[in-house]
């Protein structure tokens, strides 16, 4: 048995990390949201809002600011955080759904992981039993996973953030349940992502890195749970890495030449903004060279994997409606403009 070393993390009891972090989020942003400790959910302060379609998302913790940091005006009405990298349970999703339903129905935004899909499915059935209309949409934008009979299907990654923002704006404008759900679907269908990692990450409960990456190597095609990617390669220059990311995303997106896109360069938690903007510069140039025009962008760490060093690229093919919804005001702990 190896000697247990203390992880280099700010913890009291590792078993309480999620609850204590959520309490801190509520302490910092009491003007926007509240933390229901018993149900372990984050709820928009003025929910439920009569007549407004509500948006609920959730998933394992460790991806902050996703999802709790996106609760507020113009985005999510509630978030259900599970344990670190573990899907929340149906009880949380049901409690969140009941807390935010304003009579117009609730959209569940579900990232495509077996656990998330199964638990949200059970919660949606329970909510229907309670007379709440729920529309569930699964996000699966990760091109690193072959979507075939031989996998659990593509993972939900960066497009989740964009879908929550854009569909949240649609709900804010008074769109119907079907329309809001359809907006989530459209974002998912028009977005593709690809991630890379330069290090693993350390879940608080185990205190050990999920995998070891030798110096000078890069994991290509990673998800957001510290899991290894599809293959490992020698770490090249930033320009060479972006070549791989842009090629993976663009070849799958099959956007028409001249298409207007939103380019989202996301940090995995351990990569500084210095490097993320360097990556964005490369992405912007290479997308234009590939024939698409980044007319909107988002650069920062929004869907993370604890302290993993790495980045993902999401490209969303815009149209007028999606652009307008993206530009609409949003006021949450992690995304804020137009207010």
């Amino acid at each position, binding site marked *: 048995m190896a000697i247990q070393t203390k992880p280099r993390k700010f913890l009291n009891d590792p078993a309480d990390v999620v609850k204590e972090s959520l309490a801190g989020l509520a302490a910092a942003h009491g003007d926007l949201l509240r933390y229901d400790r018993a149900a372990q959910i984050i709820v928009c302060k003025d929910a439920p809002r009569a007549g407004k379609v509500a948006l609920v998302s959730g998933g394992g913790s460790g991806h902050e600011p996703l999802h709790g940091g996106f609760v507020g005006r113009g985005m999510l009405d509630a978030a259900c955080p599970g*344990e670190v990298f573990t899907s929340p*349970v149906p009880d949380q999703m049901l409690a969140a759904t009941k807390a935010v339903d304003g009579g117009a129905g609730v959209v569940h935004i579900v990232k495509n992981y077996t656990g998330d899909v199964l*638990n949200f499915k059970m919660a949606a059935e329970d909510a229907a039993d309670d007379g709440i209309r729920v529309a569930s949409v699964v996000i699966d934008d990760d091109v690193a996973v072959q979507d075939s*009979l031989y996998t659990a299907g593509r993972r939900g990654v960066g497009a989740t953030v964009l879908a929550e923002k854009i569909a949240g704006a649609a709900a804010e404008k008074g769109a119907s349940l079907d329309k809001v759900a359809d907006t989530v679907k459209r974002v998912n269908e028009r977005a593709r992502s690809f991630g890379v990692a330069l290090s693993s990450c350390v879940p608080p409960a185990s205190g050990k890195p999920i995998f070891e990456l030798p110096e000078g190597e890069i994991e290509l095609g990673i998800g957001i749970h510290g899991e290894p990617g599809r293959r490992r390669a020698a770490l090249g220059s930033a320009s060479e890495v972006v070549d791989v990311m842009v090629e993976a995303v663009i070849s799958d997106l099959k956007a028409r030449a001249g298409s207007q896109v939103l380019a989202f360069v996301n940090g995995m938690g351990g990569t500084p903004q210095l490097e993320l903007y360097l990556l964005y510069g490369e992405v912007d140039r290479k997308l234009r060279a590939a024939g698409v025009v980044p007319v909107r962008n988002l650069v920062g760490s929004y869907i993370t994997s604890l302290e993993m060093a790495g980045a993902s690229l999401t490209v969303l093919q815009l149209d007028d409606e999606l652009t307008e919804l993206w530009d609409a005001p949003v006021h949450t702990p992690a995304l804020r403009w137009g207010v």
Partner: protein
Amino acid sequence: MDATTVTTWMREIETSVTQERDRLVQLDAAIGDGDHGTNMTRGFAAVVQALSQDQEAPPGRLLILAGRTLVSSVGGASGPLWGSALRSGGRVLGDQATFDGPQLVEVLAAALASVKDLGAASVGDKTMVDALEPAVAALGRTVGEGASLADALEAAAAAAEAGMRSTIPLQARKGRASYLGERSIGHQDPGATSTALMIRALQRAAAASS
């Protein structure tokens, strides 16, 4: 077998997954996200706690309660999968106070059907089904041949363990390990491993109550 068998089974599982927690975490870290040991330990601690507050219930009701507790406390994929499995198994027994070998076969067959239905997995996908299906088959066969319950459960536990080992050379086609493609080959599936622990725990629980 009766309600005590079920409570003992759940306690044996808790002991077993707690002892093997680190190994389950390591197996899951290799091809998943490293939370399986933690989740199973948390879930079965909650199950033992819930069952200790309901001493009077018949075995079927206890299995349903155990299943509900897993769904409410585990999360991930194993929560709904094992939760539904135990609930389906419990419903087979209704309110009867005792059950025999052939009924145990029906309980586990219902559990297996529920897992396969919810998870859409088959033998060979590198999942818990690779351990559970051969265990149910071995139990059904030996009970059908008139073997003692002790022998039948030994055969079931051995079949689950063989099934668990059979996942090593497989490429995962379900769950998070499937994202790794060929890199999942050579690793034992954590879900099949905890399933084998659970069938072994059942064998010990039945031995203790006979």
